[in-house]
């Protein structure tokens, strides 16, 4: 288990302090840490375990159970593409292929230089205006392969 950097330790402490009076607050704490750092440090597990008085295995179990939580630094740009039925009916499969070719990695993976990562997401709640994607935290609906390529190119230039 790697030790946390000062910045990581501060983020974990701040999150624990913020929710110290709330019952069952492991998820809000994990969200706060990830919102701050972009990931949950490996080294946070023992700290969280002792703060919640549960085993390290339980903390590890929670972090790895939920798709949203991650223990590695995110890529510079994150593109999440909806893979669920309503977007399937509007062409998300070919849209995914376009994205894979444009950024140079497969869905669920990141590029070697960690500039891009492609993530499957199962429903963004934009089912009447699919296909939908989320690019660096911003939602886009009714997206065509051409528009997606343009959005990716724009990010690459920024």
């Amino acid at each position, binding site marked *: 288990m790697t030790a946390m950097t000062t910045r990581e330790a501060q983020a974990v402490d701040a999150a624990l302090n913020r929710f110290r009076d709330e019952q069952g607050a492991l998820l809000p704490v994990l969200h706060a840490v990830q919102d701050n750092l972009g990931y949950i440090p490996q080294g946070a597990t023992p700290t969280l375990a002792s703060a919640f008085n549960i085993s390290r295995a339980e903390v590890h179990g929670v972090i790895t159970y939920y798709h949203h939580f991650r223990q590695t630094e995110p890529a510079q740009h994150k593109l999440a593409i909806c893979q669920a039925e309503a*977007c399937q009916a509007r062409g998300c499969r070919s849209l995914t292929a376009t994205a894979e070719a444009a950024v140079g990695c497969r869905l669920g993976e990141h590029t070697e230089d960690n500039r891009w990562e492609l993530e499957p997401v199962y429903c963004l*709640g934009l089912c009447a205006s699919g296909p939908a994607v989320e690019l660096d935290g911003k939602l886009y609906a009714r997206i065509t392969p051409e528009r997606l390529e343009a959005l990716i190119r724009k990010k690459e230039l920024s």
Partner: protein
Amino acid sequence: MSITVYVPRDSAALAVGADEVAAALQEQAAKRGAKISLVRNGSRGLLWLEPMVEVVVNGKRLAYGPVAPEDVAGLLDAGLLEGKAHPLALGDIAEHPYLKNQERLTFARVGITDPLSLEDYQAHEGFAGLRAALKLAPADIVQQVLDSGLRGRGGAGFPAGIKWKTVLGAQAAQKYIVVNADEGDSGTFADRMVMEGDPYMLIEGMAIAGIAVGATKGYVYIRSEYPDAVKVMEAAVERATAAGFLGDSILGSGKAFRIIVRKAAGSYVCGEETALLESLEGKRGIVRAKPPLPALAGLFGQPTVINNVLTLAAVPFILARGPKAYADFGMGRSRGTLPFQLAGNIRHGGLVEKAFGVTARELIETYGGGTESGRPVRSVQIGGPLGAYLPDSLLDLPMDYEALAAKGAVLGHGGLVVFDDTVDMAEQARYAMEFCAIESCGKCTPCRIGSTRGAEVIQRLQAKPAEAPVQAKLLRDLCDTMLNGSLCAMGGMTPYPVLSALDHFPEDFHLAAPKHQAA
């Protein structure tokens, strides 16, 4: 006098550029010396017309849409602020056939009001239900919900009043109200639209539930894929608390109720009520065995009402207008209205609130206008990833819990996902199994292992048409195990899309159609 202009803040509008349209309106109006007062409303639910701009002229709301940022200058030049003609003009939006013929009880305010304005909410009957509830004995509130016939809108359709009655009767120092806002089903977005477009209605419903059963604390568990809904709900709870609608003494009644908004973390199965409770407690979202029922031993082991967003959102109307006003809508044992969500390959996708009993065909053809691609409808999946795929021949079924169940289908959360004739139903069946494998909590074997084996069987069937009859038999056998042996609906209902695809579209599985197709 400034002119009131509305631009929605609903995610479905933001995702197609509503913020950019709002910014362009501000800038272009200022350039022309026109004074506008911009309101960011919820969405009316005519989602193919978003971003939809409305302007108030002579007390009417005249709409334009879909508006792109680059259309704004031209619209202003054409006289948008006076409601003048333009190719994008839609006229008086309240008279639009898509809206006019709906029966909007729950969605009465959505798209009309400023979601976070308490004044606007109260000017549109807001908190009338809460005020009525404060004058009633707890058992009488529960009786009104029972009399309304309101059933759980999350999919199971269990009578809400019975759940409330159980919690009211339970003895405990602390009881809870939990809102299931983990709207993970593809093709559904009504919960999101309520939270983003009329959050005080949900807060009011929760407070009424709290007063009715003696719960002083409520949680809203919102999926992490809905960051806008989380933000709006948090802001609404803060404002409602500051104004005395929540807190230690609701409107000075001496009754306490507080709400905490919690963000989920991307697990579909947490939409199952017991997995959701585990998650709220800070654990992995693993399904609990029932009994005990959450109504008796729910959150932190205490008696808990856990209801879907739409269930609680229907409650203020019932208390304000009386249970009969609600029960007068609907058919059979399905009383009231359901906000249907038209999604997938559909021309006019959006939200259509109608009384139970409307047919899928009416929703898809009359409201939806057929497919977006212009090709024939081949299949409609009703009720999310665990719902059946229906062929065209079954689209005249009334939308009613019992009528659909009789055909091996479910109404679920009221989402309809339309597919045109290019769909490969074997691939949809394989996806259903794959999705279950990804999202299974892993507690019971039929779901955990069955889903993976199911996806493999379908893959083999796809690869080797000659083996199709054998693999199909194996698949049916596996589905039988999952249906009857799974702990919750995840594994127990994944066979619905699989078997319905197999039954209604055998040709996609390299199988001959049976002589007498089961209708």
